[in-house]
Every structure is written in structure tokens, then in C-alpha cells.
């Protein structure tokens, strides 16, 4: 049961439309006007400090955990240093765009155009990127949905997990300042390296001072609010306690659960105002918070009920921050999602079961508060407690799409494969949606999406786009001239490798510009090796610099399509290549009988080796192709088949495909089957997905399934679901996630959104409020095959 306080906060979260605050952008801009000529990291650190010093302070009604990023409770901010152009172009339509609308008033629009954007003209990351990207790459890699990396040059990187265990909680930001000052003492003014380090240390001293000042301003505000309340009021006592906590953390190490909770939120605020990041992950929350919880409960400082309330308060704080993104990006990351991934369960660094009371309390918080944040991930290992698995499947049965369920040992293997030491690999947490990750890491986990379907399209269409007729790929002979299946496959891989190459160019171009333009002092200060070695995250300062992740979209569509070509043309001789190419070019109009035959060819997701093997081979090829490239830190690139909502825009630019899919329809996501083509049981879909060598795709793999709610309505049904999950993981799979809400309910929610405001659904690798999705996204979710009770 939610407390009345949490329910009130939750009501606002469910009902309020997010609003854009321009405060941060204004202060940031003003600061930059004063720091011209200084080192870039210092300028950014100073801007951070100034923001901490000037941002208006808001303690909202009933809050136990405080710290706002702007004047609105449900709030997004602007980061013009990354990109202001899309904002300038789109802000008048923020309120009425189909996906992720925001409130931004006419006055605000006028204000930013006058006070903020002029300064950034020619200075933003986006402009630099567009100026430097080779024309050939730009043609297929900028706003095309063929290869898409826009979140890496219109936005900050994010994708980092602050190290509470080894940096923040033991040192506090006060300790970080001391460390940096000590380090500076050992530097010499005649060494070029040391000069760069000096700038870095100065930058993290500034950001640390900034976040401490921000906390103290909240302490002052809480005290002022308390003063005017009657002596015996409960809120007064709360405010006095809040003031004391903010006085102490994050400057000093926390000593109580409440202090640690507030510390976590201040760190999150720092991350947000520093760069408005995607995937600023709270990490293994149940691990680093447990010692404080255990001690406070033992000493009678807090009850379980009070701790539960505070966890729910934090969940709402995570959810009230809105990631401000372009309409294009919102297509890829639909649902106001910030991807703050919080991981629970799994094993300890030593290899023991890691579950504790907080593990269960986190699941309870998500079940009760029904917030779309944090992205709750669980690590399930073979010998995990049955109670844990029971709690996981019970949460699944509630239909929120949470938690994302991960295979503990495959996550470990993925990290080993990426070069981690074994203890660190065992300590993994999720990043974003389904990326296995670790706190001492700098990486780009969602660097580029590659549209596999485009490669097939260019192979069959002489290098041209089916939708536009423009030549986007490499030259190729006419489809009718392919004499063998092998030839078709080779032609596909030729186009495929070309897309991969451009994905790499996009990424390393962006990486270089990030180094020059947007160093990350605040977030670097939360990473151990950055402090130790005096190097920013963007300069490769972390212990691990893992190669960027290139995500493959449309594995099922391409595998299914190649299977059709193989069977109908080269095995059964049902039609010629010319006919099929013509059918595809005509969106199957006039070829209905052939389409029926194409649809009857085995489809990925039904445990049929005929087509599953093709999917496996594509995935293996993808890994080899991508893994041979190195990023600017000489780290090999990584592959992923993860989700987000990218399969929708990537399908939109794709003509019809030989598998029978119509032009413009969504592509396929992760290692999931194509919508509606997994006719068997979820077990068959699981077996197909597990055939992919998931452990080599260190950027993560994703399987989404819909289950009929009846199947998991009883304890016994949930126990069977637990067994299904464990069997799936025994097959070597990494992730699975379930939607258990019936199509009937989803249609009702479409028809009457006001009655279903808190209905959470799984999108792809994350959950969000169903009513916050555009109609096309909602339809795509409804279309996913619902596996019923058999």
C-alpha cells in the first residue's frame, strides 16, 4: 500500500504534462559568455558550478528526497551546447507532437531564441558533427533511419554508472576535492601531460564544489520552510531533517540510509544538469544501499515501512525528470524514457547470491508506485532463491513489463568477452535497457542503429532505396541476374558490410568531437580511475574503455526474407528472382498469391532450424564484421540486438520485404521474432532466440514476449513462468521481458486514455506509460503476438 504522501506525488506524476525549463540552459550560456579562452573542461565545469549556484530551488509538496532541475515538478531541460537547432526547429510543436510532447510556452520560445540560441550558433556539437561528417556517410547516416546515431551528436553520451561503492559513498564530493588537491600538488608545470591533468582536476574540484553548494542551498531552503511552520507540525520535523541531510551529503560520506538515498539523488541531479544524459544508471542499488539499511534497521533509526516509502519517493524523482529529445530521437526512444537502469539481484563480486531485503523492496516499489523509472532490471542466476524468482514472476504478472529479466551468467560472459577482469565482470549492472555494463567504465552503449533490412533492400534493388528510388547502397546487378542463393547472400553481406563501415565512421567522428567539445567533469568525478589518473571520461579516463555498441535492427525480417528467397526460388522453384523482386517493388500488389506462399515459408521464432540458422549466420557475421573495427581508444566495437523503439522508424523507411512484410511496416526488434509470425508457443520463440550466440554480443540482446495474463494469474502459473525463464537462460539467452496485458485492455486504453493513465507497458527493453506512446507505437505493441494459454 502506498502512503498518502506517495500517492499524492504519484498522482501528479501520472497526470502532469512535462514542462521544459530554460533555467539551466540560460545559466549555462551566461557562464560560457564569461569563460571564453579557458580550457573546455574548465568552462563546462564553471557552467556546472554556476548552474548549481543559480538554479531556482524547489522543495515540492510532501517531498522527502529533494533536488529539482528546474521550476517544474515534471521537468525537462535544454542542453544547447549539444544541439539547439532541433529545438529551434521543433519547439513550437513540442506540445502537439505525437511522441513525447512537452509544454513550452510562446514566451519561453521567444526567450531562448533571444537569450540562448544566438550564443551557440556555430558552437554546438551537432554543427561540428555535421561539418565534419564525410558527405557519403552523411547521405545514409544523418536522419535517414538507415544508420542512425543522432542521439550521439544531438545529445550527450550518458551511459554511465556512478561508482557509489568505491568513490562516492566512501569519499563524498568533499573527499573528491581533497583527492584532486593532493593530486595537483604532485603535478609539474613544465609537463604537457600534467597541464592537462591540472585542468581536469581543477574541473572536478569546481563541479564537486558546485554540487555541494547546490545541496547547501536546499538545506537553507528547507530550514526557511521549516521556520514558518508550527513547532509541532510533522512537516516541520521532516524539513529540519532534510536540511541536516543536505548539509551533510553529498559533501561527506553518508552514514544513514536516508543520507545515502539523498546522496544518490543529488548525484543524479548533477548528472542531469551536467549533460541531460541518457542512461545515467543507478546501478546495483540493492548492493550499495543495503549496509545503510541493515544498520539503520538494526539500530531502530528507520523502519522497513519508512524505507519503503523513501524508495518509492526516489522512484518518483527518477520519473519526474524528462529526457528532452528531438522528434526523431523520440521515435527511437519513445515514452519519456531516460533509461536510468537500476539493477537488483544477481551475484556478489565473490560469487555469492546477492539478494537481500532491498532487492524485494525495490520490486515492491515498482509494483506499487507503477513508475516507468527506474528501469528495473533483475539478474537471475541458476541458484537464485526461489522467493526471488517468485517475486520476479509476480511482478511480471502485474503487467507493467517490469522487471527486465537478465541471465546473470551470460551478463558475466558478455563482460569477459569485452575484456573485463572476472570479479568486475561478476559485479555487472545494466545500462540503458539491456546492456551489460559495469560502473568503472566509459563506453557508448547505443552508438548507432543499423537497419539490416536496408542492406537486403539494396542487394535486391541495385543499391537503391525501394521507397525513394535513390541510390543509397553500393552498385549491384539486377536481382533477376542472381543465379544461386549464395550469390544473393553475398550481395546482402556486401551491402551490409558497407552500412557497418559507415556506422563506424559516424561513431569515431562523433567520439573525436566529444573529446574536443564536451568533456564531462562531473560524471568523471564519479569514476575511480578518472580521479586516479587525472583524465576525463571522454578522454578514456575510466578503468575500462569499451568499444561502442552498434545495434542491429531487423534480424528476423532479413532472416525470414532470405529464407523465402532460398526456398521459393532456389529450392522449390515456385517463382523466379525477377518475380519476387517485382512483387517486392510493387509492395505485393498483384502478387497476393505469391505473398501467401512467402508467408508460409518457415519464420524465425518457431524453433525451425531452416530459418533460425540463417539468423544465426547473420548474427555471427555481424559480430565478426563489427568487432574488427577499433574506436578512438583502440577498443574493438561491439554488437547488440537490443531494443528501444527503433524498429518502428527503421521499418518506416523500408520498402516491402520478401518475407511478406509490407512497405513501411515496423521492422523487427532485438532477437525477437517478427510480429505475428511466431505461431508456436513462447517456448519456441525462446528456443529460436537462444540459438543466436548471445554471449558474444556484449552490447546486449533482447527478447520481448507477450503472454496471456491468465497464464500468470496464479502462483502456479508464475512458478511455471519462473521455470520457463530458467530454462531459457540455461539455453544461453541473456534477456527476456514480458507484456502480460491483453490486447483488449490495450485497445480500451487507446480508446479511453484518461482512464488508463498509469498503465505501464513494455516497449522494448524498457517500460513506459502506454498512453504516452504515439498511436503507431501503441499499434505496434498491440500487434505483438500474444501467446495464449494452450
Amino acid at each position, binding site marked *: 500500500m502506498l502512503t498518502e504522501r506517495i500517492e499524492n506525488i504519484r498522482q501528479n506524476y501520472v497526470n502532469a504534462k512535462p514542462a521544459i525549463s530554460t533555467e539551466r540552459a540560460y545559466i549555462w550560456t551566461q557562464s560560457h559568455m564569461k569563460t571564453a579562452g579557458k580550457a573546455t573542461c574548465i568552462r563546462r565545469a564553471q557552467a556546472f558550478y554556476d548552474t548549481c549556484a543559480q538554479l531556482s530551488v524547489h522543495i515540492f509538496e510532501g517531498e522527502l528526497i529533494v533536488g529539482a532541475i528546474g521550476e517544474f515538478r515534471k521537468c525537462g531541460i535544454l542542453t544547447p551546447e549539444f544541439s539547439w537547432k532541433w529545438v529551434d526547429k521543433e519547439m513550437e510543436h513540442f506540445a502537439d507532437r505525437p511522441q513525447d510532447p512537452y509544454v513550452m510556452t510562446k514566451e519561453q520560445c521567444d526567450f531562448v531564441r533571444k537569450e540562448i540560441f544566438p550564443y551557440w550558433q556555430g558552437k554546438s556539437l551537432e554543427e561540428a558533427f555535421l561539418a565534419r561528417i564525410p558527405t557519403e556517410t552523411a547521405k545514409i547516416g544523418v536522419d535517414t533511419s538507415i544508420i542512425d546515431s543522432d542521439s550521439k551528436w544531438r545529445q550527450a553520451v550518458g551511459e554511465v554508472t556512478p561508482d557509489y561503492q568505491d568513490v562516492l559513498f566512501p569519499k563524498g564530493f568533499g573527499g573528491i576535492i581533497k583527492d584532486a588537491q593532493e593530486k595537483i600538488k604532485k603535478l609539474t608545470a613544465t609537463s604537457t601531460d600534467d597541464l592537462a591533468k591540472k585542468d581536469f582536476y581543477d574541473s572536478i574540484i569546481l563541479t564537486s564544489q558546485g554540487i555541494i553548494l547546490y545541496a547547501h542551498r536546499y538545506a537553507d531552503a528547507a530550514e526557511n520552510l521549516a521556520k514558518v511552520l508550527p513547532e509541532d507540525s510533522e512537516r516541520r520535523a521532516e524539513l529540519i531533517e532534510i536540511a541536516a541531510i543536505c548539509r551533510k551529503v553529498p559533501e561527506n560520506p553518508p552514514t544513514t540510509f536516508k543520507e545515502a538515498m539523498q546522496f544518490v539523488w543529488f548525484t543524479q541531479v548533477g548528472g542531469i544538469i551536467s549533460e541531460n544524459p541518457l542512461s545515467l544508471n543507478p546501478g546495483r542499488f540493492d548492493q550499495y544501499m543495503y549496509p545503510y539499511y541493515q544498520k539503520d534497521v538494526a539500530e531502530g533509526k528507520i523502519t522497513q515501512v519508512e524505507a519503503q516509502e523513501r524508495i518509492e519517493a526516489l522512484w518518483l524523482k527518477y520519473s519526474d525528470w524528462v529526457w528532452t529529445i528531438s522528434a526523431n530521437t523520440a521515435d527511437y526512444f519513445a515514452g519519456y524514457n531516460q533509461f536510468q537502469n537500476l539493477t537488483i539481484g544477481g551475484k556478489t563480486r565473490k560469487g555469492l547470491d546477492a539478494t537481500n531485503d532491498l532487492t524485494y523492496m525495490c520490486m515492491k516499489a515498482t509494483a506499487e508506485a507503477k513508475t516507468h523509472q527506474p528501469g528495473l532490471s533483475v539478474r537471475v542466476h541458476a541458484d537464485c532463491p526461489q522467493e526471488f524468482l517468485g517475486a520476479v514472476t509476480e511482478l511480471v504478472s502485474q503487467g507493467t513489463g517490469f522487471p527486465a529479466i537478465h541471465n546473470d551468467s551470460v551478463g558475466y560472459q558478455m563482460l569477459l568477452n569485452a575484456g573485463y577482469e572476472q570479479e568486475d565482470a561478476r559485479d555487472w549492472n545494466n545500462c540503458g535497457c539491456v546492456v551489460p555494463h559495469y560502473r568503472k567504465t566509459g563506453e557508448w552503449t547505443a552508438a548507432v542503429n543499423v537497419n539490416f533490412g536496408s542492406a537486403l533492400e539494396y542487394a535486391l534493388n541495385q543499391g537503391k532505396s525501394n521507397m525513394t528510388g535513390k541510390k543509397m547502397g553500393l552498385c549491384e546487378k539486377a536481382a533477376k541476374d542472381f543465379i544461386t542463393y549464395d550469390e544473393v547472400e553475398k550481395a546482402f553481406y556486401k551491402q551490409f558490410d558497407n552500412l557497418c563501415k559507415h556506422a563506424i565512421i559516424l561513431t569515431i567522428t562523433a567520439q573525436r568531437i566529444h573529446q574536443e567539445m564536451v568533456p564531462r567533469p562531473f560524471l568523471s568525478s564519479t569514476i575511480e580511475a578518472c580521479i586516479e589518473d587525472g583524465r576525463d571520461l571522454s578522454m578514456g579516463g575510466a578503468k575500462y574503455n569499451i568499444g561502442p555498441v552498434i545495434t542491429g535492427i531487423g534480424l528476423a525480417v532479413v532472416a525470414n526474407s532470405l529464407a523465402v528467397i532460398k526456398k521459393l526460388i532456389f529450392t522449390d522453384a515456385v517463382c523466379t528472382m525477377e518475380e519476387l523482386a517485382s512483387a517486392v517493388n510493387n509492395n505485393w500488389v498483384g502478387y497476393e498469391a505469391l505473398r501467401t506462399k512467402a508467408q508460409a515459408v518457415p519464420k524465425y521464432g518457431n524453433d525451425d532450424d531452416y530459418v533460425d540458422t540463417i539468423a544465426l549466420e547473420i548474427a555471427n557475421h555481424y559480430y565478426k564484421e563489427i568487432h574488427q573495427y577499433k574506436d578512438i581508444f583502440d577498443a574493438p566495437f561491439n554488437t547488440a540486438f537490443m531494443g528501444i523503439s527503433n524498429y518502428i522508424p527503421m521499418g518506416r523507411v523500408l520498402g516491402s520485404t520478401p518475407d511478406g512484410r509490407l512497405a513501411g511496416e515496423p521492422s523487427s526488434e532485438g532477437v525477437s521474432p517478427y510480429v505475428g509470425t511466431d505461431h508456436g*508457443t*513462447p517456448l519456441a520463440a525462446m528456443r529460436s532466440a537462444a540459438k543466436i550466440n548471445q554471449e558474444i554480443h556484449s552490447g546486449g540482446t533482447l527478447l520481448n514476449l507477450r503472454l496471456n495474463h491468465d497464464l500468470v494469474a496464479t502462483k*502456479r502459473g508464475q512458478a511455471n513462468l519462473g521455470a520457463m525463464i530458467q*530454462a531459457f537462460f540455461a539455453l544461453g539467452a541473456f534477456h527476456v521481458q514480458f507484456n502480460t496485458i491483453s490486447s483488449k485492455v490495450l485497445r480500451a486504453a487507446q480508446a479511453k486514455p484518461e482512464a488508463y493513465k498509469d498503465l505501464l507497458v513494455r516497449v522494448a527493453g524498457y517500460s513506459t506509460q502506454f498512453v504516452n506512446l504515439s498511436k503507431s507505437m501503441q499499434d505496434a505493441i498491440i500487434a505483438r503476438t500474444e501467446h495464449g494459454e*494452450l
Partner: protein
Amino acid sequence: MITQDSGYIMQLQNMSVNDGEGIRTNIFLAGCPMTCPWCSNPEGQTLINPMTKITTVDEVVTFVKKQMLFYRYSGGGVTFSGGEATVQAEFLRSMTNAFYDRGISLAIETCGAFAFPVVKDILAKMDTIFIDIKHMDPVQHKKWTGYALNPILENICSVDTLQSNLVIRVPLIVGVNADEENLVAILNFLRNNLRKPQIEFLPYHTYGEEKYRQLGKALPDVNFHTPTEEEQNLAIKLACAFGVEVVSYR
């Protein structure tokens, strides 16, 4: 042709969760000596019809082998159903032995119309045996099912001598057998004759209607009704009063 190597199958259904423990594969064998007019699988009443298919033991084993991991983790296995699985006794025996030797947990759902000595070895390999009682009045039983009651009751008693877990299933059909008098008679029989009497009530449903249409058969009598929640609860209460354990695989 029914041999020890092949027989008529209606369907192989993975991820079945209501006919025994865990996640199971249901193997629906065609053919049935009874002719219950409410049957939810009318394609199983005859061996050969457009909805049945000759299938070899090897094919079934290949199909089932892919599911082993799911059985292992869930405590599931294979359930023979139908139709009446014992009609094709040789085929059933081959499959039973093949699965038994692979350590797969087995269950059978039967109407009880079999020659016990002929199938005893098969039944002895089952972990769970579900046997239906449709009616306790011999005249009514014959009228509805076309089959005598007595052999069914005798077989139930015989099966109870095996080591398997025995569950009596009663399809609850208002208009046929859901009246208190009939239920009392069933419960009395179970209490007086079984070592550890267990009963599962299966409320009548009409999910099979589409199959009637496909087979060109007349739909079941509109006077068959699904018991209300209340009627189902009454049956459960009654069973408890008789000391018969009510089980459910829902």
C-alpha cells in the same frame, strides 16, 4: 495405420500447463470408445478424419526432445490425452517406453474405457493418471457416453492399486451431471474405494465449437451449461465435506 511405430494424432501441444505438473507437452491421440455429445475435442472421437494425422513415434520423440529443458526446470513432462489414448495401445506403449527411458515425467488423461490387463504396464509408468467419471447413474452414463459405467469404476479401482498419483476428473455440465445427487454419488464412491481420493472439477466450456464446424458436425446441445462460480464452489464444498481432496491444475 496404427502400429507400434505410428498412430493417429490430433495434435502435439507444447506449453500445456493444466494437465499435470509444470510445463508439459500434450499428445492428443485420436479415437475414443465413448461418444459424449459435449466433447471439447470432437476430432478425437474417430481415428481418421480431416483433423487427425498419422504420426510416427520418432516424429513425436523428436518434437518432445526439444522441450526437455522446459520439463526439467518446471517439473513438467508429457501428458497423453485424446480422444482416448489407450485406443491405440501399441502406439501409446512405444511412446510411453521411449519417454520413460529418457526420464520424462508422464501423465495420462483417460476416460477409463480400457482393458486394464492390456494397458497395465503403460499406466504403471505414469506419474499421474487422470480418469473421468461422467455420471454415477449407470443408465444416464450409458445414455450420455454410449458406454457402460461399471467397467469404468472397476478400472478406477484397479488403477488405484498402482503407484501413480490418481486424480478423478469430473466435467461439470449443468443439464447433465452437475446436480447434487450425482455429485454425492461420485464422492461416495471415491471415499469408499480409493486410498487417497482426489477430484478435479472441470467446468464445461464451448471452446471446441469451432472444431465441430470444421468437421461439419452439429454443435453440442444448447442445454449444456457452464456451471456458475457459485455452482462450482458448491461442488468443491461438497467434496470437502466428503473428505475428498479437491485439486486444481489451473
